[in-house]
């Protein structure tokens, strides 16, 4: 029982990482209709920036929290610039496939450039959270022990999701962003600068990726250019499971994937090394039964 609870909590930690990268994918998909294959590598690049700023031996030795903040700000600007300079001109050529190729190119390019600049050796990311473990509760001698790292990660990513939800649902800016996502032409006729909103959407997605990447890297004993590769697959899976246009769906689906993965690792020995089949199999079944995902809207529009 104690092991089970610990694994579920670890699964929640990983699941929130998948969920927040999925969130970034969904934000871009909803505002620009683009599947951003480069999301993971944008996060990787930002993670290296965080590392460079924070590392005592190879970098500037900034406090890690400040380093993450600066990296998120840089990522925000870079994401907005990518939308304006690379995505929009290609989108205006009116072939959705062209944009897919651009994001695939970004995926490969960013990964290579990151390794060119920062090297291929594994690097150590300082953690913003205190070391050690916390005993949550004990039942009959078996204490449930979780690392402070994991608890911190969960707290930060939950806070991020709540803030994002408040921004989108409770502010004027959020209303403009959702208006552009729902009907860009009509939004422009209401005086909303659609182009600016698209840049903001990409900027937000990139900043979310920077936070997720930096936190994940700080949990590892070392990270390299492959940091985001499994995460982006799980994030795409979570986005599909959540329905691709639902922000809540992305987070919930991320949690489902994370927990399923953690429990498989713990309890299903024959699948050792190929645990990934369980969450992906689960998603396949859900999508066969519910083609729009768990939270995707079944389009009921009347004309």
């Amino acid at each position: 029982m104690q092991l089970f609870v610990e694994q579920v909590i670890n699964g929640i930690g990983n699941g929130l990482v998948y969920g927040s990268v999925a969130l970034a994918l969904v934000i871009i998909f909803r505002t620009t209709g683009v599947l951003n294959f480069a999301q993971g590598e944008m996060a990787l690049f930002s993670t290296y920036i965080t590392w460079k700023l924070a590392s005592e031996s190879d970098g500037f030795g900034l406090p890690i929290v400040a380093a993450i903040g600066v990296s998120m700000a840089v990522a925000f600007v870079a994401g907005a610039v990518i939308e304006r300079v690379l995505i929009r001109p290609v989108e205006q050529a009116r072939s959705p496939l062209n944009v897919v190729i651009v994001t695939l190119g970004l995926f490969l390019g960013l990964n290579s450039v990151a390794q060119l600049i920062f090297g291929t050796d594994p690097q150590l990311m300082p953690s913003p959270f205190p070391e050690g473990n916390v005993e949550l509760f004990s039942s009959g001698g078996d204490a449930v022990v979780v690392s402070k790292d994991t608890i911190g990660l969960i707290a930060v990513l939950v806070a991020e999701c709540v803030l994002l939800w408040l921004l989108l649902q409770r502010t004027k800016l959020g209303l403009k962003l959702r208006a552009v996502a729902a009907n860009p032409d009509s939004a422009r006729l209401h005086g909303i600068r659609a182009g600016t909103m698209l840049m903001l959407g990409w900027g937000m997605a990139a900043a979310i990726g920077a936070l997720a990447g930096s936190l994940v890297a700080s949990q590892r004993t070392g990270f390299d250019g492959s940091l985001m590769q499994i995460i982006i697959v799980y994030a795409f899976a979570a986005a599909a499971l959540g329905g691709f246009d639902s922000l809540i769906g992305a987070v919930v689906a991320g949690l489902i994937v994370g927990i399923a993965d953690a429990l498989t690792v713990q309890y299903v020995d024959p699948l050792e090394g190929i645990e990934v089949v369980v969450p992906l199999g689960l998603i396949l079944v859900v999508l066969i039964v519910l083609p729009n995902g768990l939270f995707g809207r079944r389009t009921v529009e009347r004309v």
Partner: protein
Amino acid sequence: MSLLELANVQGGYGPVRVLHDIDLAVEEGHVAVVLGANGAGKTTTLRAISGLIHAQGDIIFDGRQILGRSPEAVARLGIAHVPQGRGTFTELTVEENLRIGAVNRSDGDVRSDLERWYSVFPRLADRRNQEAGSMSGGEQQMLALARAMMARPRLLLLDEPSLGLAPLVTRELFAQLGDLNRNHGMTVLVVEQNANLALDIGNWGYVLEAGRIAVQGDARQLHDDEAVRKAYLGF
């Protein structure tokens, strides 16, 4: 001086020219009606005013040249354009749709304006928390009108509001449009196929043919002119 004036406006889509020479004017407080067959250039005329297509000539709104400005900029000057298809934000609620109408206003009266338009369109009030896309075509057209009015525009552009609506609903819609003009002093430029209803609430009418103004005149006189009706309006 007219609130809106188009002089020698030409334009179209890429190499295809739809508007050849459009001259029209909308007086403040009036309803101007643009009639014409499919493909005559009615929708394109509205799109040229809103900056949605490239055009040449002069489009003067309130003494200012607005030709060449972006749709966002034109909207901010006080022109509300309800496009064909009604521009509904389908996955947002009715109330959020109305708030989008007021999104560029910074005065504190948005709340009271909401209540005002809810009282004009009670069916929207009943459905304020419902997804806008789930409403009927007629309700979405009312929503589009109310959303446009939330911007407190000086000029309302309406593109075939009767399209896809049942005759009874169309009648109700035009009654409400007439109200907007009489009771709220709204200046309207409406493009319609339903000449009968539109001319009933209009002050001045234009008949478009192949990208040019073929006939224009007082709405009442156009309505009663046998020759015009036979040649252009088909009723």
